[in-house]
């Protein structure tokens, strides 16, 4: 078992947000957590990476990665795990990059934070990774500021950085929701492709059941901090048991919606 989260409770200050969440993840598998805004889905994956905002803290439960409870980590142990073994791709990678530094400098810096390579080597490897993400003119991208790139480009740069070290687990927080439909499909394809090649496990948080159904082996539906329903993609999409899941499925946009097609077909 690569990652096992058991009975996780999380509070912001005195206010409990997430109740009794458990999940198990094997190498190479994909879990999707779906739910509306405020359902606590992002909070769960942030807890896995130990980066809960300000007041957030885990009040109960365990997060065991590779046989070790991450919650007992020291700051330095966290630092070594995060960004290398476990990485995160954010909703808007553009705002996750330092606005006053060029992409290249940040990418190279990120690599050199974790491995001891020369700047030149790091630069070449970064270029290679951007090429793998099918980004045109990687040299130009490396020489750009984040605000000079489109949302889709920034997002792919974010995914490229997240995938760079072939992490054991990739945590993706709404990685496609800021993108238009065409770019969404491309980014999802590229993420899936690279993960398949490298054997990376993914936890993707999304409110798009189409993306979830397409990518995930298992889907977890969350509402108000509780797990409402869980099952294989097939079960959830074709045979939802809870009313809330059905509502979510109905809420998927109809035009070209992947989940809709699957839903209809089943």
């Amino acid at each position, binding site marked *: 078992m690569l990652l096992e989260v058991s009975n996780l409770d999380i509070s912001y200050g005195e206010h409990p947000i997430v109740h009794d969440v458990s999940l198990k993840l094997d190498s190479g598998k994909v879990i999707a957590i779906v739910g509306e805004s405020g359902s606590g889905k992002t909070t769960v994956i942030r807890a896995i*990476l130990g980066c809960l905002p*300000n007041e957030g803290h885990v009040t109960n439960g365990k997060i065991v990665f590779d046989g070790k409870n991450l919650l007992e980590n020291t700051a330095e142990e966290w630092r070594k795990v995060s960004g*290398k073994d476990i990485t*995160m791709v*954010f909703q808007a990678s553009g*705002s996750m990059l330092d*606005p006053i530094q060029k992409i290249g400098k940040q990418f190279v810096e*990120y690599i050199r*934070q974790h491995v001891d390579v020369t700047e030149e080597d790091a630069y070449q490897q970064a270029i290679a990774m951007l090429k793998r993400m099918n980004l045109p003119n990687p040299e130009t991208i490396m020489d750009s500021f984040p605000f000079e790139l489109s949302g889709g480009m920034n997002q792919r740069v974010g995914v490229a950085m997240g995938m760079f070290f072939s992490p054991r687990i990739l945590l993706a927080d709404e990685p496609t929701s800021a993108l238009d439909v065409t770019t969404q499909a491309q980014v999802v394809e590229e993420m899936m492709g690279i993960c398949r090649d490298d054997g990376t496990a993914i936890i993707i948080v999304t409110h798009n059941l189409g993306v979830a159904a397409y990518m995930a082996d298992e889907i977890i539906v969350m509402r108000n901090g509780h797990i409402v329903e869980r099952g294989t993609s097939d079960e959830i999409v074709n045979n939802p048991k809870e009313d809330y899941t059905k509502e979510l499925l109905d809420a998927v946009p109809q035009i070209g919606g992947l989940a809709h097609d699957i839903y209809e077909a089943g």
Partner: protein
Amino acid sequence: MKFFKDEKMMFRFFSGVILFIVFVAVFGPFLCSADPYASNMTESMLPPSAQHWFGTDKLGRDCFTRIIYGARVSLSMTLVTVLLMSCIGTLIGIIAGYCGGKVDTFLMRITDMMMAFPGIVLAIAIAGVLGGSVVNTVLALAVVGWTKYARLGRSLTLKLVQSEFIQAAVTNGTKPFALLHRHIVPNIMQMVIVTGAMDIGSMIMEIAGLSFLGFGAQPPTAEWGLMLNEGRQVMQMAPWAMIFPGLAILFVVSSFNLWGDSLRDLMDPSRSH
């Protein structure tokens, strides 16, 4: 009047003025032949003339030459003071904002304590205890002035640490030191530089003030505040010995203030349009 509305033009114009002042301070002494320290009692208190543009003081020293030499003293003291207090203050502020908790409380209570003293009075006290000299004046003003930068650095750091890209850098496993000097320092530098630029003018005033009171530069140094004080003793007989150093201070301080304002207008993103 369009000229004064164009922020870039304003900045260029005042930068030109500042460059001129710096040029005079650096190269002026090579350009004027007179010795600012050579007293000549036969030429004591001469009014402005072709030979002595700004007249002579009671010891017969050429006021123009002394003002040129004084630019060096005033500017170098000011720049060292501003650099010293902005670096120390910002560093303390960043540490407080970044570490938070007890470190923050400790550093900020010290800052509050320092701020409770009236600045110039404390500077006089420090300079008085240490003895009047150029170095002690700089130290005294830096000890009083760093608190503003500590507050600024702290609030900017607090805001920045909350921002998404810093959070992302943390989740990417960036080492704390790299986080500080690669992301936090460069991102708050702009505001610190603007504040520093706007402080230069008031620092020139305070240094001249301390020297005027006798806690700063000591005779016979050619320093504007000190020249004012020496001129004061002969004000009725040789007003030029006071007027011209005063005008020099007025000119330089307003130039730096206007330059600082135009720099702020240029760099403040919330005011751009």
